[in-house]
């Protein structure tokens, strides 16, 4: 059922993309990423490196009218080098509306649907949600953005399903015409899986037990995976440069802590990528 829905959404996205010739653009790219804690372990964690590629179609608000529509459709694939079972492919479709309430301030509301197929099929999922984002310029080259995202992710196995509410804020600076950086903070409250890690010594290790579908043995992580409510705090940095017209390079790093009944897991993620806009 979920596979069929994913295929239908994929086809819808492609059809919508090729039927919208104006104010739209394609972007493709590749990246190398690092994740210090792919198993969300509260005690250590397994790190891994992945290679990713994507194709994105987007239609942005032109600003010619106060109210305009947007569309984003993307396909993405990531191959993990050590934990092959985490390799995944996903498709995201996000139509939206942008409103300019006053001069350069903008608000975008965008529901989305995302289908994700993971080599470890337990984690394959269909997600629905909506994002509300605001942007305001501060002076000539500085801007501020805020966003709220609600996500309902339904995985093949309940332990990987989650709903979450996310709030974020970021500050960006256009240093030159071709170089920018952003720094941000994000808080989210919702479900997540966590593991105890391989050499757990935590005294709270038993708190996730006895919750029916809330835990499951994972052959991918070779340990029991627990699902619980967590608070996640993230801080991140992104920098991008336009190397030549239409060719961009991005670097991003995020530090996250995720605190639940089991304990706190810490994660460092980073990626460097190259994008071509056409």
């Amino acid at each position, binding site marked *: 059922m979920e596979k069929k829905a994913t295929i239908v959404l994929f086809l819808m996205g492609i059809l919508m993309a090729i039927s919208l010739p104006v104010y739209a653009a394609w972007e493709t790219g590749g990246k190398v990423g690092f994740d210090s804690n792919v198993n969300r372990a509260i005690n250590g964690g397994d790190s891994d490196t992945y290679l*990713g590629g994507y194709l994105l179609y987007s239609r942005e608000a032109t600003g010619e009218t106060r109210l305009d529509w947007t569309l984003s459709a993307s396909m993405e694939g990531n191959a993990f080098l050590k934990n092959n079972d985490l390799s995944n492919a996903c498709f995201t479709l996000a139509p939206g509306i942008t409103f300019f309430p006053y001069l350069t301030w903008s608000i975008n509301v965008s529901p989305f649907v995302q289908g994700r197929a993971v080599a470890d099929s337990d984690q394959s999922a269909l997600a629905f949600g909506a994002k509300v984002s605001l*942007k305001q310029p501060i002076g000539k080259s500085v801007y501020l953005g805020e966003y709220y995202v609600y996500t309902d992710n339904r995985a093949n196995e309940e332990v990987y399903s989650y709903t979450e509410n996310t709030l974020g804020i970021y500050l960006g600076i256009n240093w030159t015409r071709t170089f920018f950086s952003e720094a941000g903070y994000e808080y989210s409250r919702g479900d997540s899986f966590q593991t105890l890690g391989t050499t757990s010594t935590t005294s709270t290790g038993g708190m996730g037990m006895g919750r029916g579908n809330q835990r499951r043995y994972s052959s991918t992580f070779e340990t029991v995976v627990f699902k619980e409510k967590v608070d996640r705090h993230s801080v991140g940095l992104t920098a991008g440069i336009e190397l030549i017209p239409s060719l961009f390079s991005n670097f991003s790093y995020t530090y996250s802590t995720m605190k639940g009944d089991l304990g706190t897991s810490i994660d460092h993620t980073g990626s460097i990528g190259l994008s071509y806009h056409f």
Partner: protein
Amino acid sequence: MAWAFLLLSLLGFSLLFQPRTSQAQEKDVVLPESGIHYPGGFDSNTVGIVQGRAHGFSQPPGGPIQFRLDSGRETYIVIASPSWYWKDLGVKIPDGTEVRIRGSKSLGKDGNLYLIGQDMEVPSTGKVYAFRDDDGYPLWKGPRTGAQGPRGGFGSPQKGIGGGPGGMGKGRR
């Protein structure tokens, strides 16, 4: 090896200050009478300041606010901004008002001189109305996020903070 690194570093540094002359992009529309690309036809190499009297404010269907600028020696057609942005700026100037326009000059295919407005000063009131930033980026498109403009938005797999549905966390796989 060290030389290669140094050369690459210099190349990377020079890219930071790479000049951009024209905003023209494939997603521009071509204005029917003038043949000017809008809003991307702004060329920073042709920017100049013209002072004169403003007449004949109009807004062609689906196009930006336009008006004539008589400088005494020449007459320009000023291409300003979409009407909602013009309204938000609070521009209220009667026909014949003396204004000073900074903008990119261009010769239209209809033989008229055009001025793609960057900002407009009304000397009698001292008010300045900005339509575009220093690089000619249209301010009505919202803040330019990232060096490449407001691109790589929702769901962009390459975008960092606030990019994907889950923002920084990018979901939990």
